[in-house]
């Protein structure tokens, strides 16, 4: 994929990965950001014109001080769509990105073609409290995110050798910066009341979930399905919270069946 940098009207400068051709698809990443390799995006690009913007505070994107609350994040999403010159894209949001995509679809229902929510954050069920991702040891995080923690560790760190102190420091700083940003909409409870706005979502919606998700358990998939007027829920076997990375093939085929070309 090629990388371009856009500037939103608010003044945030964001890196966007872009590839493929066809109907525009905007992919919004989760709290950990895009990883070093995102093979599912390459596969999607075989059928769609894929854009994967990085939020301010992630990678080379700057302007994190401009975004403070949920409305800022939501409007930033639309500002990015505008800066890319897209009309009525499909939106795919993973985890925190799903929370943002759902808000975008609720505030501007006519501007979304179809919506895909993947292991989306943004709801809270008292009987299924979501673990506090801001209070985890690194090993615990990997256990929660991936069905196969060893594979997950390699994916998350992008193969960085942590015995190299400088490399470790750079990774640590990056992670602090990313999660500081994510905390603005996820801390202390990842619920900014999108549930009371979901009745507005007009786009046909696919809710995709890993059946082994331990971070945001499948009960949440059913809740999204209940709250969004035209939603279908699909479970992906052998996948946990990082399902696009864990099962890229199954992920892409489910998305491709749902999004028209």
């Amino acid at each position, binding site marked *: 994929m090629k990388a371009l940098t856009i500037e939103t009207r608010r003044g945030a400068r964001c890196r966007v990965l872009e590839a493929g051709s066809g109907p525009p698809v905007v992919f919004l990443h989760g709290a950990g950001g895009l990883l070093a390799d995102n093979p599912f995006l390459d596969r999607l690009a075989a059928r769609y014109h894929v854009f994967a913007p990085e939020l301010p505070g992630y990678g080379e994107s700057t302007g994190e001080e401009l975004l403070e609350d949920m409305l800022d994040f939501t409007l930033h999403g639309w500002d990015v769509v505008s800066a890319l010159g897209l009309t009525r894209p499909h939106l795919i949001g993973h985890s925190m990105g799903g929370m943002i995509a759902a808000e975008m679809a609720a505030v501007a229902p006519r501007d979304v073609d179809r919506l895909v929510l993947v292991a989306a954050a943004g709801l809270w069920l008292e009987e299924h409290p979501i673990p506090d991702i801001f*209070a985890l040891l690194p090993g615990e995080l990997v256990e929660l995110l991936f069905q196969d923690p060893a594979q997950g560790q390699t994916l998350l760190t992008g193969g960085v050798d942590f015995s190299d102190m400088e490399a470790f420091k750079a990774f640590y*700083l990056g992670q602090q910066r*990313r999660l500081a940003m994510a905390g603005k909409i996820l801390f202390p*409870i990842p619920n900014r009341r999108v549930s009371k706005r979901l009745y507005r979502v007009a786009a046909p919606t696919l809710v995709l979930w890993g059946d082994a998700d331990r971070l945001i358990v499948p009960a949440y998939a059913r809740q999204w399905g209940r709250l969004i007027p035209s939603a279908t829920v699909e479970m992906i076997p052998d996948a946990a919270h990082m399902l696009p990375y864990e099962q890229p093939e199954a992920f892409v085929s489910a998305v491709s069946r749902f999004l028209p070309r």
Partner: protein
Amino acid sequence: MKFTWFNLMPWPYLPDDFREKHRSVWVDIPNTLYDPRKGHYVYHQYMDQLEYAESLGFDGIGCNEHHQNGYGLMPSPNLIAAGLARRTSRAAICVIGNSIAGYNPPIRVAEEFAMLDVISGGRLVAGFPVGTPMDTNFCYGQIPALTRDKYQEAHDMIMKAWAEDEPFAFDGKYNQLRWVNCWPKPIQKPHPPIYIPGGGSIETWDFCLDHDYNYSYLSFYGYLRGKSLLEGYWDRVAKRGKDDSPYRAAFAQIICVADSDAEAEELYAEHCLYFFNRCLHVFPPFADPPGYRTVNTIKYGALSQLRMEAQRIMQGLTWKQLVDERFIIAGSPETVRQQLEECITGLRIGHLFCLLHTGNMPDWKTRHSTKLFAEKVMPQLRHLWSDWKDDTRWWIHPMDERLHPEETRPGAEKPGQEWR
């Protein structure tokens, strides 16, 4: 040189296997470990000790705010301070302080601190900490990356509430009040001395210097490790063209005094080890949520190095290490005097927060240590900073004709017998 007797008020009944059985003394510590009936005696003992310190001539007595923890039992230090204000009349009451980012609305702090200043006759030292991440973020739910911004706004509201004579509207990002009108207002004008406790965030230095507030470095790792951080502060003071009055800075130090060095170990070792092994046993992620520290502070690195170094030493900690590494200053009056002089002059601090009660130390040992300190150490250190003895910018200015409510008196039965 000013000495404040400080009690963190730890829970003294954490079990011996606390470290092994529980991951943290803070945030998610099982509250079944707290026994309110024992707590009744604990609070009274701790408050008695603070009052005792006043009677021995300490300049101040101090308390602070922490939540959901066995390390310090003061979710509301203002309640403790209110008790002290009624039972003392001379010492400064140092509330170090209220974690103002967590108060909604922050005018509450302006009001309660004003009440304390009025009840005590102008003896309040007002502390405004950002609060530890355990307290402010994990217990009180503030978003880490916005905590400093919210803190700043709360500070602005409180200071304006004290300064203004007319009601005003406050249109903040986190707090909107159409009518801010602080009743009562503090006795001390323009406001009580303000202390900003810092754990090592470099942004705090400029904040203190912008407003001429006291910078209080609170650490349990002693003056050898505090030195590089205080040096950074004093460099900043010089760069900003401010005078270098030692009263701009305060430091907290665990101190144990006995008749001899050997007796100090015999009397106090188990209690100091209790403190370091149990009361400081915090699950690491609770101490470092992303966004609480700014990238600049992380890059400055003082904190993380200090932590890593401290973590290393904390493994299998012994009394000898605590003393040799100067985490604590312990020994005979002469040993303590000599090391404290090194600490005070080395860090250039005009205020010492003396932690003379530590961990699960029983009352009699606390009083023994406190008395020896007051009689044999404090007088030997009073002369320090005599060049600055008239600099009262960071100390209380009480009413001369204030009451002595600790002296019991019957109510007025006839006209003319009222307090006035």
